[in-house]
């Protein structure tokens, strides 16, 4: 049941990315290009997702455990440090260079072709590199 729920959540996420047009890097770059012919679509995608998740978090506060067992995620330690800022800035740089972030890059795996696969391979390599250079105390 838990595995099926995981698959359904991933599938819904993928359909949402596809329907919203966010699997097209041109639309993402159109949003990020505020000095060009600005495309506001991404704001509606994030707005819609947050509109569902905000009440979902409120409900999570009142419940003791998820429906299929396990426990709700703990509130993360709120440490705003160079690691968070540097990582987010580096991610933004890569996102702006290509127009792909991890979700859409995976969702378009089937039709993205060699250009997408090259990006994905580099992204996975980057995750591996980060793991090797990560300081031990920052393990998460």
């Amino acid at each position, binding site marked *: 049941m838990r595995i099926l729920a995981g*698959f359904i*959540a991933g599938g819904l996420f993928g359909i*949402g990315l596809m329907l*919203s047009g966010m699997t097209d890097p041109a639309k993402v770059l159109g949003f990020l290009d505020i000095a060009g012919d600005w495309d506001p679509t991404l704001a509606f995608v994030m707005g819609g997702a947050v*509109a569902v998740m905000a009440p979902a978090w409120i409900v999570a506060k009142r419940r003791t455990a998820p429906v299929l067992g396990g426990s709700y*995620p703990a509130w*993360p330690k709120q440490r705003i440090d160079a690691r968070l800022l540097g990582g987010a800035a580096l991610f933004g740089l890569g996102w702006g260079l290509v127009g792909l972030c991890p979700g859409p890059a*995976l969702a378009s795996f089937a039709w993205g072709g060699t250009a997408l696969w090259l990006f994905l391979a*580099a992204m996975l390599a980057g995750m591996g590199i980060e793991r090797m250079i990560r300081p031990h105390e920052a393990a998460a």
Partner: protein
Amino acid sequence: MEIDWLYGLAGGLLIGLAAAVYLHGLGFIAGISGILGGVLNGTTHLTGIAFLAGLIGVPAAIALAFGAPAMTLTASPVLLVAGGLAVGIGTRMGAGCTSGHGVCGLSRLSPRSVVATGTFMVAAALTVFVMRHVIGVA
């Protein structure tokens, strides 16, 4: 073209629903880079692998049945590799991407996620500005 925002909103609601199913069904945060990083580390359970299978497999099946959606990926191979490396290292270092910080964290009003989302949005917009309007690539 004029109704793109409507598709965006509908897709966004579905993404929110997916994240809510993952949270209320299993107790996990639907952050793609976190799930992927966990699979690479061997710390994500089968549910994370099932999530990724759905994320790749369901769009693949829809594309097979109805045709693939538009995708314009114009970056050169050098940019694809540089961008991929930056996204891979950056999302793991910053502990989240557009889904983990941008959707799940913002909606929880997590200060870390608000700061991270603001940072990667500004960095990405600056990058696009420099690439398109200063250097004139893509």
